[in-house]
């Protein structure tokens, strides 16, 4: 289902580089489990190659910092390629052409780079491959699970925990949820809280939300960290999670455990380790002058579908999740 048409990277030397390859992995933050998994995946793949070396850069969750790092890598001549976990999709795009000019191919993970968050095909000169999923589609799938659960329930009360609405990708996720939910008159979105990808913040937000809405049927959350925090609040308020439809996002190990245990109804899974591997492969291909796959649908990288439930996981007893945080 991914775009299999093979293209040759315009920015890689047509002959391709021989000898050792050095890849810069620009993490959105190096002190973050998700990013760490991307890095670990890339390193594992590099080891298999033998002559590829990966260096991680700390983006400090700051666009400007990451912008500078792209610029530095492009100008130093130390690195042959870049794997990116972007902090933002638009700003960073402006730095990529410099890398292109320096003949340093870039593969982005998790999100596309460029003005359109929903367009996975490389939008910017210099991006040779996007290893990501369609966030909007994934979010809709998660919400559709909730719709199904709500069938016959009127009202069906939904609380949304979103990272930070001011982040474009979270804004997109929230809109995607709403576009699915709002079409169903029985579904009431009673609260939208910001969880900030943080357990403690989510715990507080959920306690407060429960205050105004003691009866909730669904928790839609885009991040596992948030659901874990919310779970503490729900359980100490005496809510039985199995009587609710609780979701998370990210597919981290804790989330997979909770879904298996039946406490969470569903999780939207990411495969950061595999994403790191795939992105590294594509960049190395570009550097070596080999064919490059411009779009790799991240949903297809793991052994499980993007939305997992207890049943689905039952079919994949070995899957534990690709990251911990």
């Amino acid at each position, binding site marked *: 289902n991914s775009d299999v048409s093979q293209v040759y990277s315009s920015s890689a030397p047509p002959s391709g580089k021989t000898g050792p390859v050095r890849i810069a992995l620009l993490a959105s933050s190096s002190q973050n489990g998700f990013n*760490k998994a991307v890095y670990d995946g890339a390193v594992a793949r590099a080891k298999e190659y033998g002559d590829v070396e990966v260096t991680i850069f700390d983006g400090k969750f700051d666009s400007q910092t990451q912008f500078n790092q792209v610029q530095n890598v492009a100008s130093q001549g130390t690195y042959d390629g870049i794997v990116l976990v972007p902090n933002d999709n638009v700003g960073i795009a402006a730095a990529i052409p410099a890398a292109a000019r320096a003949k340093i191919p870039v593969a982005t993970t998790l999100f596309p780079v460029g003005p359109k968050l929903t367009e996975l095909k490389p939008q910017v000169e210099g991006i040779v491959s996007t290893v990501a999923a369609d966030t909007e589609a994934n979010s809709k799938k998660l919400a559709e699970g909730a719709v199904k659960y709500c069938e016959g329930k009127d009202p069906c009360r939904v609380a949304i925990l979103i990272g930070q609405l001011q982040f474009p990708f979270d804004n997109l996720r929230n809109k995607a949820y709403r576009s699915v939910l709002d079409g169903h008159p029985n579904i009431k979105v009673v609260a*939208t*809280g910001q969880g900030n990808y943080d357990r*403690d913040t989510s715990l507080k937000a959920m*306690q407060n939300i429960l205050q105004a809405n003691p009866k909730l049927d669904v928790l839609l959350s885009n991040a596992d960290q948030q659901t*874990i925090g919310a779970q503490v609040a729900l359980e100490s308020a005496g809510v039985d999670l199995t009587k609710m439809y609780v979701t998370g996002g990210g597919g981290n190990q804790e989330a997979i455990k909770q879904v298996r245990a039946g406490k969470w109804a569903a999780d939207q899974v990411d495969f950061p380790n595999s994403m790191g591997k795939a992105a590294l492969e594509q960049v190395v291909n570009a550097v070596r002058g080999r064919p490059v796959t411009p779009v790799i649908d991240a949903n297809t990288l793991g052994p499980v579908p993007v939305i997992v439930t207890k049943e689905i996981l039952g079919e994949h007893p070995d899957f534990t999740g690709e990251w*911990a945080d």
Partner: protein
Amino acid sequence: MTATASARAGSGVNVPALVRHYAVLIMLVALFVVLSVSTSSFLTLTNLLNILNQNAPLAIIAVAGTLVVICGGFDLSTGAIFSVANVVAAWVALHLNSPVLGLIAAPLAGAALGLVNGVAITRLRIHSFLATLASSLVYAGLAVLITGGFLISVQATGFTALGRGGIGPVYYAIVILALFALLSGFLLNRTAFGRYVLSVGGNAEAAELSGIRVNRIKLYTFLYSGLAAGIAAAIGVSRIGTGQPQAGDGMQLLAIAAVILGGTSIYGGVGAIWRSVCGVYLLALIDNGFDILNANPFFKDLTTGVVILAAVALSVASKRR
């Protein structure tokens, strides 16, 4: 600003002075009333206990921070100390397989880091603003190193009891905060140590010439602040059941904001513990209000800023005639 400003006060029952001292309380009560009226979910025992509970760790840090600020210092490292202490707690609980030891480790780690701050500040004679800015970076780095950047998850129920349990409906966190605030208020107002803190912050040279060991007093305040951050971390990590290297990010600024919002002078020498606690809960009510009113979070920062300005303007306006 000069003598003129403080010069003016009314007579008899000093209303302006009252307003000045109670500005943060007045705002707190006002917001409380507004929220009680606007939604029935606010004025319930559970919600109030939740608010108290959620913000108890921050309030504990602010209580000790009040002593630091009164003593003329600034502790910008409490957030990082919280982070270290919370991962230390989880680490110890996991590796020594003892939830209790883990929870005890947090305050100890906090006190130790506070001591390091105190020693650095008094020995190197660095201003605490810069010293704790630097040490907070070091500590934040430490927290990451301890965990290798990962979370440390502790599922033992003994570990989570402190953060989630309570006496009857009253969470332990609230009880700890109350005790800590009372103790700190007692220290400040009823003991020689408190007097020394006040005088060192007011005029270090005069204190020194009065035979007070200025450096030691300063050091103790930082130790105390570190201890408080450690206690707060014990509660925090126990609540979540997970040690996170970024857990304390930004807490130091919130705590200091609350202290100053409570009217403690950043120049030292004057201040009150209870007002800092009010400061914390004023900020907390705004948060709670947004959540339970399901208000657009886009306006939360803005509202918080406006409320702070209003509280301060209220206290300052009363200084004029």
